[in-house]
């Protein structure tokens, strides 16, 4: 009976499902016509996205002067959005890599869409440094390429260059990890598809996957090793993003706790975004049997833990700014809380410190509506966190004559809102044409974590009924399931 896990663990797949029903549930939305709501949402997202693209073209044609920056605040809106999107992009690989290493079966219901979200969020993040260059078309100058300026190389001492390597590695490795998992699921769709053109498309996408034993053997190892290398990668990426600030000498930025604090904040906001998207998706695509209260609760616990780490980091920052005895450092933090940006600071504190603490209450963290509201609150809070760190630390310069404020221009707003639109364009396309659950991986946990198998209401296979051993007692490695 070793397919079984402890009865105290809640089932991960509700009701009775067969392997075929899992395939049906995931493939049906792809094969059927898209619901009207999908077209409405897609149209809205596309219009917003195109408006953002328009703003980007205007920006590129006119110059960075169209932003709300000034002599004192030389870095504000763009880098805030960059860090915000990179942070959101931290949940997917965390879910698929770290939770794989910890053998957390519940990740299988959410990893596919969380990874998709990660990839699209990192696309959006990468856009900001590129457009900030002003001349998008010379973006390749960030790479160490031989050039005609003598032996002029990029500066490998600069955290900004570390960022180039970190973000591009993160994006490409996440993409490969995601796609390798998608190949067998594309094969499932390919083999079911009746219409010739989609069948051809899924044939190309599935790379001729046939599900041979040797291929599955390699698949499992590749997933494990990719998870192994992606785990330190997740932590390194946001550490390096935090170095953009932490290695400077600006009071408020020059803080040694930034790397762990940024990583915790990134996971915090990433999981919140996963909640926002999945709570809608499970309803719209009728996946309630696979993504249910228990999954939401697990994610809320991650939000609670990382939110608490972020809260401790805020308080530590305040303490250290006082304890350091450096008056510039102390002023940076007093100004944050009581200066002209007090409202941004207290929005951040309310959204990020108080709201995750509510997750200590079991009924709240199991409430889907409450979770949805908090997930949006958290991402608002995390946006303010970056804005507070970046803008309040520089808007009051050492010389009071240089003191200034940052007000976003309508182009700033347009680019930001536009990236949200583009993000949803990508995500909606993903939900329409890609298998949103790792359906073939889910089948591996059906017998150990499916509700009907846990409470013995699932019919025993006739072969075992006839041959006497009702259970699956020859199944030795039920811990080995990724």
């Amino acid at each position: 009976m070793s397919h079984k896990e402890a009865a105290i663990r809640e089932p991960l797949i509700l009701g009775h499902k067969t392997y075929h029903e899992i395939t049906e549930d995931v493939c049906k939305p792809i094969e059927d016509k898209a619901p009207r709501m999908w077209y409405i949402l897609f149209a809205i997202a596309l219009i917003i996205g195109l408006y953002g693209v328009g703003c980007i073209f205007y920006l590129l044609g006119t110059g960075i002067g169209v932003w709300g920056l000034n002599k004192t605040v030389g870095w504000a809106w763009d880098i805030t959005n960059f860090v915000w999107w990179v942070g959101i992009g931290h949940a997917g690989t965390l879910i698929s890599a770290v939770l794989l290493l910890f053998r957390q079966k519940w990740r299988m219901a959410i990893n596919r869409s969380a990874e998709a979200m990660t990839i699209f969020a990192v696309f959006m993040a990468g856009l900001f440094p590129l457009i900030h260059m002003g001349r998008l078309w010379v973006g390749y100058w960030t790479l160490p390429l031989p050039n005609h300026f003598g032996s002029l190389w990029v500066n490998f001492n600069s955290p900004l260059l570390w960022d180039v390597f970190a973000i591009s590695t993160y994006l490409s490795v996440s993409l490969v990890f995601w796609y390798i998992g998608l190949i067998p699921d594309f094969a499932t769709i390919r083999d079911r598809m009746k219409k010739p053109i989609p069948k051809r498309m899924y044939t190309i996408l599935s790379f001729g996957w046939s599900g041979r034993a040797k291929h599955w053997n390699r698949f499992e190892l590749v997933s494990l090793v990719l998870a192994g290398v992606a785990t330190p990668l997740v932590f390194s990426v946001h550490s390096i993003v935090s170095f953009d600030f932490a290695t400077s000498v600006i009071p408020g930025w020059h803080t040694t706790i930034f790397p762990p604090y940024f990583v915790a904040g990134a996971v915090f906001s990433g999981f919140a975004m996963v909640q926002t998207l999945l709570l809608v998706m499970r309803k719209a695509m009728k996946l309630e049997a696979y993504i249910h209260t228990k999954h939401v609760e697990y994610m809320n616990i991650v939000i609670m833990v990382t939110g608490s780490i972020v809260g401790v980091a805020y308080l530590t920052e305040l303490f250290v700014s006082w304890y350091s005895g450096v008056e510039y450092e102390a002023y940076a933090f007093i100004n944050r809380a009581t200066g002209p940006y007090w409202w941004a600071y207290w929005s951040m504190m309310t959204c990020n410190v108080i709201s995750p603490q509510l997750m200590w209450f079991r009924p709240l963290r199991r409430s889907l509506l409450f979770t949805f509201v908090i997930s949006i609150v958290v991402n608002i809070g995390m946006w303010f966190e970056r804005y507070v760190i970046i803008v309040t630390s520089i808007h009051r310069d050492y010389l009071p004559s240089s003191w200034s404020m940052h007000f976003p221009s309508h182009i700033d707003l347009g680019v930001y809102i536009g990236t949200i639109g583009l993000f949803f364009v990508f995500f909606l396309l993903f939900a329409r044409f890609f298998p949103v659950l790792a359906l073939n991986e889910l089948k591996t946990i059906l017998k150990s974590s499916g509700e009907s198998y846990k409470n013995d209401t699932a019919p025993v296979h006739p072969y075992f009924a006839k041959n006497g051993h009702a259970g699956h007692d020859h199944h030795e490695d039920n811990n080995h399931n990724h």
Partner: protein
Amino acid sequence: MADTVIYAMYDDDDVLKDGAKKLVAKGVKVAEVFSPFPIHGIDPIIGVKQTRLGIMAFLYGITGLMLATIGMRYFMISDWPMDIGGKPNETYMDNVLAFIPITFEFTVLCAAHGMAITYLLRNKTLPGMPAQNPDPRTTDDKFVMEFRMSENSQFTAAELQAMLNETGMIELDQKEIH
């Protein structure tokens, strides 16, 4: 080479594994198993060896580490030593701390992509490749064991089928390949 291939289909992974175990004990050679998801524990039964892709990943990682080290040493130390704030880069070790992030990232980049490319090449799963599973249902909820008569010459096709009938299979298919 002409050969007779027998495909036995099952509707449960545990039934297939049980059957494979019994057949192998009788001396039958299982050529291949097609399944919609990894059947844990099938590999040692049918004699599939553990893949060595992990070793390849390590080698690709080491290559990335060396390339990053050699590259940064050349760019920052020998070709154009930058003197930042009076802190010159005389030797690689003077500046090694600043090189660690990119060294790490590049190691991961090479290990992950090298392994992924090797994986796809070894599997022969590449864009445009045709599917080779014997039945489209094997990517949904059916499991197929493949036997080649040339590898099981001590049995006749009829004997093999009789043994298969006892293992709870649901469909049998026979094919001649040339």
